[in-house]
């Protein structure tokens, strides 16, 4: 690592588009040596794309990235590493069965190996362990280098991931919310490490959710919104208020939403509901009501939905559905009782990708459309045809593999699957993730229409904008609990974000 000032990374005309959607557009950005640059922005603002471009995992659509003056070959993580870019990701790509030492030196040899005969080929156990121990000391982690990584608690694993990146002796160290899974002591160590790196002439890119942390650490804070750099601030300028304002952007445009129903009956009611990482939660849902669930990553949004669905075991509390006690032990129980779930990850949790649109559309209602267990092709086709038509899914034929459809049309099929089951309560987890803008509007209309007919909707989303648009009421979660319950006439991004950060808000 060479010290001194000068440009570490230069972005020239870099942009990234997926189809018509531009997710990143940075005409010019220079990151200087000896600086800690904080990057903030909402979910979907382009932070992860920026990191991907810099670390070589994402190929930019236009422009080039210069690392220390040398152009980076897009889509080549190994090249980025060779040029001196190290990324500490949120999800740690450690090999669980291998020891701490083996993980730390994964893909490279300890220096001592070169002095041994056949060092190029033979595994230098002693040298690897020594080098690993030195690295852990440098970063300040207490861990046994021989222990398999999978046996370690998450915070320690995160620290090992950081040590691994540190071991590459990078010029540019990218930290993606490194402290989100750490306790205060380890978080302190990471922040100190970043400072040491910058002091030695390196460049640190620090992506953070905790604004106070970013403000304390960074020499410069850049704010991304909708893929664009909207503010480039000095620490003095970067007040918490200013940052939130820049992240949120213009005043939000409201669309017409059917007003929340007055005096409709309560459909679902949870009291003291607990599960692993959740609760206790009290929640009431009325017929025709659309309730949003806001909160940071890991705040328990998905857990709440999965627990109500019976997809995650409940550890305590009671739930009543339509006035009677409801305790699903399997999602099948929830479906029978009239609850549906549109999960967060379409490919992993919703669709059978190799199967046809028809098969996917009727997945939740197979029993209902068969007679005495027998499913006639005619009933099946008619049912799927209706779903496709009602939801205006754009396709060539219901027999084509669902993998061929665009994300928005796939999601409509998932919605149709549940609406056809005529549930009383519909749970939505990130209902428009990976959905193009046009289909998003269609899905909002679907949700609104369904609520108009008396369906109770509980929608969790990390896109605050969409919750503000479609919901009658928003509950905010933090650390597995509901910390705020905000009616529509009091909606404000600032209020929700403050609550999500873990501060109790009186409403």
């Amino acid at each position: 690592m060479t010290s001194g000032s000068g440009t570490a990374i230069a972005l020239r005309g870099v942009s990234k588009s997926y189809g018509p959607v531009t997710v990143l557009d940075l005409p010019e950005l220079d990151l200087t040596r000896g600086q800690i640059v904080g990057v903030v922005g909402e979910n979907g603002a382009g932070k992860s794309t920026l990191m991907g471009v810099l670390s070589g995992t994402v190929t930019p659509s236009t422009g080039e990235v210069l690392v220390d003056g040398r152009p980076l070959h897009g889509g080549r993580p190994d090249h980025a590493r060779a040029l001196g870019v190290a990324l500490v990701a949120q999800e740690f790509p450690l090999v669980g069965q291998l020891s701490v030492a083996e993980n730390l030196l994964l893909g490279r040899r300890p220096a001592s190996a070169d002095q041994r005969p056949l060092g190029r080929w033979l595994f230098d156990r002693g040298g690897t362990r020594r080098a690993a121990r030195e690295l852990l000391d440098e970063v300040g982690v207490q861990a046994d280098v021989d222990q398999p990584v999978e046996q370690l608690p998450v915070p320690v694993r995160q620290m090992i991931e950081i040590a691994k990146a540190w071991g590459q002796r990078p010029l540019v160290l990218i930290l993606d919310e490194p402290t989100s899974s750490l306790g205060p002591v380890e978080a302190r160590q990471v922040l100190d490490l970043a400072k040491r790196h910058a002091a030695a002439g390196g460049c640190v890119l620090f992506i953070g959710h905790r604004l106070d942390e970013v403000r304390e650490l960074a020499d410069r804070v850049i704010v991304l919104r909708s893929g664009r750099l909207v503010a480039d601030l000095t620490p003095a300028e970067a007040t918490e208020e200013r940052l939130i304002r820049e992240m949120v952007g213009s005043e939000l445009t409201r669309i017409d939403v059917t007003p929340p129903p007055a005096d409709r009956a309560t459909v679902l009611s949870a009291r003291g509901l607990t599960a692993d990482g959740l609760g206790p939660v009290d929640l009431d849902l009325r017929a025709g009501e659309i309730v949003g669930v806001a909160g940071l990553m890991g705040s328990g949004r998905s857990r709440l939905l999965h627990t109500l669905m019976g997809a995650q075991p409940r550890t305590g509390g009671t739930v009543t559905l339509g006035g009677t006690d409801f305790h699903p032990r399997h999602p099948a129980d929830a479906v029978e009782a009239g609850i549906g779930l549109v999960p967060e990850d379409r490919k992993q949790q919703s669709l059978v990708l190799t199967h046809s649109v028809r098969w996917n559309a009727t997945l939740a209602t197979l029993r209902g459309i068969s007679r005495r267990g027998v499913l006639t092709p005619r009933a099946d086709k008619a049912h799927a045809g209706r779903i496709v038509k009602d939801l205006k899914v754009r396709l060539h034929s219901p027999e084509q593999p669902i993998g061929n459809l665009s994300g928005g049309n796939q999601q409509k099929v998932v919605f149709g699957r549940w609406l056809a089951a005529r549930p009383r309560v519909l749970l939505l987890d990130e209902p428009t993730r990976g959905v193009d803008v046009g289909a998003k509007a269609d899905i909002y209309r679907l949700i609104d229409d369904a609520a108009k007919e008396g369906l109770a909707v509980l929608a969790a989303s990390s896109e605050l904008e969409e919750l503000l648009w479609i919901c009658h009421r928003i509950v905010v979660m933090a650390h597995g609990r509901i910390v705020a319950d905000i009616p529509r006439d009091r909606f404000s991004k600032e209020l929700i974000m403050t609550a999500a950060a873990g501060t109790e808000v009186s409403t």
Partner: protein
Amino acid sequence: MSTDTVPAGQREQAASTADGSALSRLARSPEVGVVLACVLLFTGLAIAKPAFAGAVNLQNMGTDLAQYGVIAIGESLVILTGGIDLSVGALLGLSVVLAAWFNVKAGMPAGPAILCTLALTGLVGWIHGLAVTKLAMPPFVTTLVTYTVAQGAALAITSGIPVVGISGLFSDLSQTFVAQVPLPAVLFAVTAVAAWFFLERTYAGRQVYAVGGNKEAARLAGIRGDRRIIAMYVTSSLLAGFGGVLVAGRMGVGSPTVGVGWELSAIAAAVIGGVSLVGGQGRILGIVAGAVLLELINDGMIALAVNADYTNIVLGVVLGLAILADRLRARRLSRRG
């Protein structure tokens, strides 16, 4: 009106041309290729050796086919759930011995002896299913245990000596002809039709495909996947037991050495017939055609007087080609998705 963006529309346009007519869709379905291969191979052999298409040889082939065809169907049901059943061959071997032992040594009439055999194999399948679902044991090792134990048990029960003197009802089952067609072949056809009906015409069958295709998606859609998986392991083992009864009748003795390696033929038939080893894909027509093709190759080599040592090489090459075709299809699918 849908307000979808242009590229998505274009993608679907492209897909629509790729989907094309019913004819081209048919041509790309994996089953058609295997059926075609069967027809071509049969025609070729019948021309080369007219005796091959003679009644006696056809009857022989039908009986042979039934014996491992039934376990190929059971095996396929398990593979559809995303699992594998290595025990079918050994379990078939054990059933041959058990049926004979119940009949001869325990003095049961043939009917109860058969029922007891089937009950035991069903129990084994149920244990497989429980181990795989409730204990999350890998299907490969779970059924490998049974494979080993069942082979050992067949030898232990008989001390390696075939059980002789079994009831005539066994041979009635295996050597009766229904309008020139051997009864085992008829029973195999009935099994195939029943499996087809289950998979294509019942909601539970569709759920089996869903569980094999994406277990988590099926679970969150309210499908009790564990029940489906257990039922498929039970069926697979029951069909192995049934195959064993047929073999006992054919051989007239309870030999402890049959069934060795049959699980591999069963898996091969499934794969050749287009059943995906990762689960969720494959149809009965293909499975039956795969079994028929293997039988044609086996019997054809004998008819052509090819050295038996070469048979396995040919079977292996055919299996390799089938797996290659499966991968190419999967790759095309994933590239389009």
